[in-house]
């Protein structure tokens, strides 16, 4: 797999906050990463670490009271960079991009289709929105897409309602919709969380296959490290709205630099360990969103804490190599400007 020199998507110091009655929640607090064409980037982190919000920010789909408060989201459309963070969510430019250039596979396939419109109608609508096709042609393409994603009896299934399909079929239809306008970037937001394990494996295999066939880049959001190992070329580890560590998948799994990444990897059961041994867990609990610790967000739970550093300043994301970075005072003293 060749990697282009220019990234397709370049996110720098992205910040998203939610203004609630109880206070401000900084859901995304200075996130940076790159996505290169035809690459699969896995974003991993616990629930509430801001990974979904980051992806919604890319599509400008943050609902009030949330707001992008800073940073750049540079998307390269036909070689021309656009800063999506500056584009208005309701503008024509943004709408033309959604679905056509950047598509989304949402979290819950159960509720992601409208129950009173047929699945086909919703996909045909997406196609006709971005391409000059008649209804008949759009329908033909939908049927073809259904075959591509492995839906049998595609002709009939196009006219089905989402509640008539099984969870796996629904997710396949969702993938068909996301691919319908041949986007160059696909954002898959925990696409396999809500379906059973066997189907999950099939969907993952399908996604890999389609990624090759359609030449799209994928951002794969999950909290499941096993899925990351199967799918991604490149991994971004997030905790409480910040990037802890990023790098190629092999390096993350075999040479993790950040104490958080190491803790995560320890908590995966493996075939080698003794069967009845308790799985190591990460000490402490996830802090309340209104109650972020000062300094490095992970320091209250960190085993390698450097007192006077980690609980005072926020470590900057420090580049270790061309595509390898970690934000930890164990590796660099560089701190975020206060």
């Amino acid at each position: 797999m060749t990697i282009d020199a220019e990234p397709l998507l370049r996110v720098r110091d992205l910040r998203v906050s939610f203004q609630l009655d109880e206070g401000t929640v900084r859901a995304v607090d200075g996130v940076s990463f790159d996505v290169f064409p035809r690459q699969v980037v896995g974003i991993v982190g616990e629930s509430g670490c801001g990974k979904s919000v980051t992806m919604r920010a890319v599509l400008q789909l943050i609902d009030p009271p949330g707001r992008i408060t800073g940073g750049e989201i540079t998307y390269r459309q036909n070689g021309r960079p656009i800063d999506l963070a500056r584009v208005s969510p309701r503008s024509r430019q943004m709408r033309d991009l959604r679905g056509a250039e950047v598509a989304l596979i949402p979290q819950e396939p159960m509720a992601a289709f409208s129950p009173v419109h047929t699945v086909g109608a919703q996909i045909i609508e997406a196609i006709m929105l971005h391409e000059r096709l008649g209804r008949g042609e759009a329908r033909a393409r939908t049927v073809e897409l259904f075959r591509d994603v492995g839906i049998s009896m595609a002709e009939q299934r196009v006219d089905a309602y989402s509640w008539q399909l099984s969870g796996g079929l629904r997710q396949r239809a969702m993938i068909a919709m996301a691919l319908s306008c041949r986007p160059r970037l696909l954002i898959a937001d925990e696409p396999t969380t809500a379906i059973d394990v066997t189907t999950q494996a099939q969907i993952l295999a399908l996604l890999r296959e389609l990624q090759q066939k359609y030449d799209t880049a994928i951002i794969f959001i999950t909290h499941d490290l096993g899925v990351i190992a199967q799918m991604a070329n490149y991994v971004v580890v997030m905790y409480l709205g910040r990037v802890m560590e990023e790098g190629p998948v092999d390096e993350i799994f075999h040479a993790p630099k950040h104490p958080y990444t190491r803790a995560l990897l320890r908590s995966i059961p493996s075939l080698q360990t003794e069967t009845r041994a308790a799985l190591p867990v990460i000490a402490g609990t996830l802090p309340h969103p209104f109650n972020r610790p000062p300094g490095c967000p992970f320091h209250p739970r960190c085993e390698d804490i450097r007192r006077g550093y980690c609980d005072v300043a926020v470590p900057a994301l420090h580049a270790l190599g061309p595509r390898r970075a970690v934000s930890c005072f164990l590796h660099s003293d560089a701190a975020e400007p206060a």
Partner: protein
Amino acid sequence: MTRYIVQRLLLLPFLLLVYSFVIFVIIQAPPGDFLTAYVATLSASGTSVSAEQIEALRHTYGLDQPFVVQYLYWLRNLLAGNFGVSLEYHRPNAELIEEQLGLTVALAVMSFVLTWLIAVPAGIYSATHRRSVLDHLLTVINYIGVATPNFMLALILMWIAFAYFGISVTGLFSPEYADAPWSLAKLGDLLAHLWLPALILGIAGTARLTRIMRANLLDELNKPYVVTARAKGLREWRLVLRYPVRLALNPLVSTIGWYLPQLFSGSLIVATVMNLPNIGPLLLRALVNQDMYLAGGILLIYSFLTIVGTLLSDIALAMMDPRIRMGA
């Protein structure tokens, strides 16, 4: 779908039968019977009736029979389209009811249409512009609308029109059209008079429906399929109208089942206050004067309209929602 409608239609005569019995019990409940009242009216107008004549009349009307037989008599006559004769007007009840039925239905239907025309856009606006000035204003209007009995609203509006503008907003026709044959001009005149009572009748319902629409739409706007549609690149207003509004309308359609009957019932009060040609005031007079067969006929018509309203709502809901249509 067809099966569903046929099922509901088959239920209709059965329900009417149940209602007719209940109604017969109610109209027979007051002391004395139709004939006592009839003889009283006759003597009041100076006609004396002998005991034999009364007995003969009693026999003709089947009043010497037991209760159930009387009911069956009444039912048989009803099926033959014979609603009996009014004591007060000395005319067939069917004729009296027929004269006013069209306008009764027209008032309720107009009210219903106005309600939806106002409630749906207002609810959509409120939900999509939550916490805006107009949303708050609509909320206040809704609370007051629900709290105001419609006869009270009618009284206030009539009083304002009369005391400050010197006009009388009663009746459904201008004097020149009252007895004229039906024409386009007369229809226009009717609509010009009908909208105000229709609005008054529908105001509480409009307030309720606006609140339901707002709440439903707010729920729907948070559903994942809205994000999916937005991620497709749909224009915002088109997206809102096509997906969440469409779904938020379903529970609203199911309100037709209680709302139409409520309009038929409520029109009785508004029509009485505003002196409109309507079966409502006719029923009121019939009840006060113990003109029981007329009252029974009108009650039966009300029940019929109510059942039809519920039926229409069920059919509309099945048409709107594939989950119900296909029995999911």
